[in-house]
């Protein structure tokens, strides 16, 4: 187990123990080494001192050849148990006297020119010259056993081991106690953190046990918890709101994570699927609905999941016998799916479609019937008009003959009545002609070409103003765009409109007529404006009717067919026509023509 993975309590103890252990060990080693060398030095010094004393005491014995005395001196070494052998050689190198202790039996030969003490194996030994004054009298050899040093070393070692063990135990005891001041706040903090992450309870607070860095850490941790708690609350409020929205909305809603598992399903969705929440949450959509594999469902879900773009589709889901409108959106964790049961709408839509089809059929039939009726009516009115003309012409012809032949024999009253008959016959003829013209125009085939409206209007104006030379007329002709229209019928249009303008301004001192065109809503709107008697807009609905007149015959003559013809031509071209006027304040007529 690595030191970094140990619990902090043990780590502290181990660190302290290792540190103190190293210190104790080093101290012991230094102490031991120092003792060892000091002891060696001391031993050498002591032995050499002892040697010097023995040598000094032995001088007389050597000088006066008294081995007994020498033996006596050497035997004093008994007091020093570590001295195992002492030899006194005369100046010739012969053994003069000797002292041995224990098993030291072999005699040690004299070695010339060797002085000083040295360690040799288990012994410290050395030679020392015996000198009196400046006379060399002999040599002393001493051998000291190092057993004591060994004993001592052993003792020291045991002592060091004891001290190490005791200090180790003491260090363990102290570190176990003292580490608490460091580890306790950390452990308390760690425990609180564990509780928080385990129970997700952010209301817990760590106890601050010290005012050091760990204390600051505890404060920071608590602040963080407070922050998290606050945010969690805010999040919960938000989540509840969202949940209400999701539950309250009309759609069924389900969300999937990136591995296709259900993470949320609202109540609508549960009702739609007829399932419980626990049957869905955590399961993949493919487990729950294996039948949507390979359908538009899977294709759309995969597409949204992969490309992160919304998708929507309508499909009939046979398992539920239901039409569904499905919308898929990418979200943070995967996709969100909204289902709407559109079976009702689909039914209504189908009904509308079939109803419309029926209606269209009906309209077409009615139109056909109407067209037939219209044609019959037109041919009827044409033939009636045509057929009416012959007897009328007979009435008018014979009345003419009658007035020419018998006018002289009749009185004034008779002549006046005769004239009325003739005028009315003539008027009736005019009416029939107009009716025929109207009828013809209605049936005439339109030949549309590109025509110059300016030229057309100019020609009509020149023609019309010929009978009005005595009048002062302010005529203005604005630029007119070319038109794609039938020139013959369009000539009728301008002819009628200009003659109307001239007719209804007849009573004006100064006549003003303006023709122009403006572009409005992408269409060319032609207009003709006069300052004539105008009309009351209340009667506008009668304006374009056949034989409908807003003025009396006496005021302004006419048959009431002109504007009907104009309207018919414009309609047949696919255009529109309308007018604006006020009684006695002039009138303006507008019409449009479709572009090519």
């Amino acid at each position: 187990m690595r030191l970094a993975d140990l619990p902090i309590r043990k780590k502290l103890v181990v660190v302290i123990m290792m540190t103190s252990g190293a210190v104790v060990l080093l101290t012991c080693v230094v102490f031991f080494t120092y003792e060892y060398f000091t002891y060696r030095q001391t031993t050498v010094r002591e032995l050499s001192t002892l040697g010097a004393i023995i040598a000094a005491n032995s001088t007389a014995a050597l000088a006066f050849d008294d081995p007994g005395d020498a033996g006596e001196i050497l035997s004093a070494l008994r007091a020093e148990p570590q001295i195992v052998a002492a030899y006194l050689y005369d100046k010739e190198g012969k053994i003069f006297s000797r002292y041995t202790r224990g098993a030291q039996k072999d005699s040690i030969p004299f070695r010339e020119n060797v002085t000083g003490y040295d360690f040799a194996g288990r012994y410290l030994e050395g030679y020392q010259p015996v000198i009196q004054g400046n006379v060399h009298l002999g040599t002393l050899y001493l051998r000291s056993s190092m057993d004591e040093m060994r004993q001592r070393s052993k003792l020291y070692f045991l002592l060091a081991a004891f001290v190490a063990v005791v200090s180790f135990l003491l260090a363990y005891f102290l570190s176990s106690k003292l580490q608490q001041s460091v580890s306790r706040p950390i452990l308390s903090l760690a425990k609180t953190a564990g509780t928080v992450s385990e129970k997700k309870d952010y209301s817990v607070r760590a106890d601050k046990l010290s005012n050091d860095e760990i204390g600051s850490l505890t404060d920071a941790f608590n602040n963080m918890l407070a922050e998290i708690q606050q945010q969690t609350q805010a999040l919960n409020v938000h989540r509840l709101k969202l949940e209400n929205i999701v539950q309250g909305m009309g759609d069924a809603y389900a969300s999937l994570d990136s591995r296709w598992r259900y993470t949320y399903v609202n109540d609508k969705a549960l009702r739609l699927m007829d399932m419980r929440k626990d049957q869905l949450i955590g399961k993949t959509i493919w487990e729950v609905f294996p039948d949507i594999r390979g359908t538009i469902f899977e294709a759309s879900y995969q597409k949204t999941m992969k490309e992160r773009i919304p998708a929507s589709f309508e499909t009939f889901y046979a398992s539920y016998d239901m039409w569904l409108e499905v919308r898929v959106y990418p979200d943070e964790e995967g996709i969100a799916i909204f289902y709407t049961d559109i079976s009702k709408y689909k039914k209504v839509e189908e009904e509308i479609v079939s109803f419309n089809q029926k209606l269209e059929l009906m309209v077409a039939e009615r139109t056909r019937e109407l067209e037939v009726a219209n044609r019959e009516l037109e041919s009827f009115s044409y033939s009636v008009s045509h057929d009416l003309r012959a007897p009328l012409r007979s009435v008018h012809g014979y009345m003419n003959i009658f007035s020419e032949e018998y006018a002289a024999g009749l009185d004034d009253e008779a002549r006046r009545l005769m004239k009325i008959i003739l005028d009315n016959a003539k008027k009736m003829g005019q009416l029939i002609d107009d009716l025929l013209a109207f009828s013809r125009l209605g049936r005439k085939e339109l030949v549309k070409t590109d025509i110059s409206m300016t030229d057309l209007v100019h020609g009509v104006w020149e023609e019309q103003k010929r009978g009005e030379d005595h009048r002062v007329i302010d005529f203005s002709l604005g630029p007119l765009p070319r038109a794609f229209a039938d020139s013959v019928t369009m000539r009728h249009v301008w002819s009628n409109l200009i003659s109307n303008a001239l007719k209804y301004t007849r009573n004006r001192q100064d006549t003003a007529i303006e023709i122009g065109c403006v572009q409005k809503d992408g269409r060319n709107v032609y207009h003709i404006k006069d300052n004539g008697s105008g009309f009351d807009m209340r009667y506008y609905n009668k304006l374009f009717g056949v034989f409908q007149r807003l003025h009396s015959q006496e005021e302004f003559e006419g048959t009431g067919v002109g504007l009907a013809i104009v309207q018919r031509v414009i309609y047949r071209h696919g255009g529109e026509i309308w007018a604006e006027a006020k009684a006695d304040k002039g009138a303006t007529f507008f019409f449009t023509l479709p572009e090519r």
Partner: protein
Amino acid sequence: MEHFSMGRIRKSAMTNVCLLLACSALLGGPVPAALQATTEEYKVKAVFLFHFAQFVEWPEASFSEEQEPLIIGVLGEDPFGSFLDEVVAGEDINGHPLTIRRFNKAEDAAACHILFMGMDGISQLRSSLEMLKDHNVLTVGDSPAFIRAGGMIRFFSENNKIRLQINPDAARASGVMISSKLLRLADISIPKS
């Protein structure tokens, strides 16, 4: 005696002895046994005389100069022959070269530091020692009555070994200090006077 023969003699001295013995051997002259024995004994005594110089201190006044010789004197008959000269040849004690001088009268020997008195007669010894009493002279002899006569150190034989008898009072009276080391080896004898 074998033990003694060349025993404590320094190399230079030993070489001299060897030379001497070799000479007598080469000359082929028969050395009388008695003489030879005496000679061996006095060789040891000669060496001891030399060694006394190391274990005895004289007062400063006994040397008028720093390098004045330390004089070993022989009074009367000389039993050492030339051996004593050979033993001390080239030696010095604390800067004082050793010199051998021979005297016939005790009054002449007052300048000695060590004086070997070879005579036997107690009266003769007593008068000689009396004469030297006030001088710083270490008196040495081998007469049995030497200490009684007022001498300081006496050689005597015991178990074939030369031993010493010392009267430290006599030495002290003459201003001569005998080392305790030396005293330790010797028989201390203070005569009743």
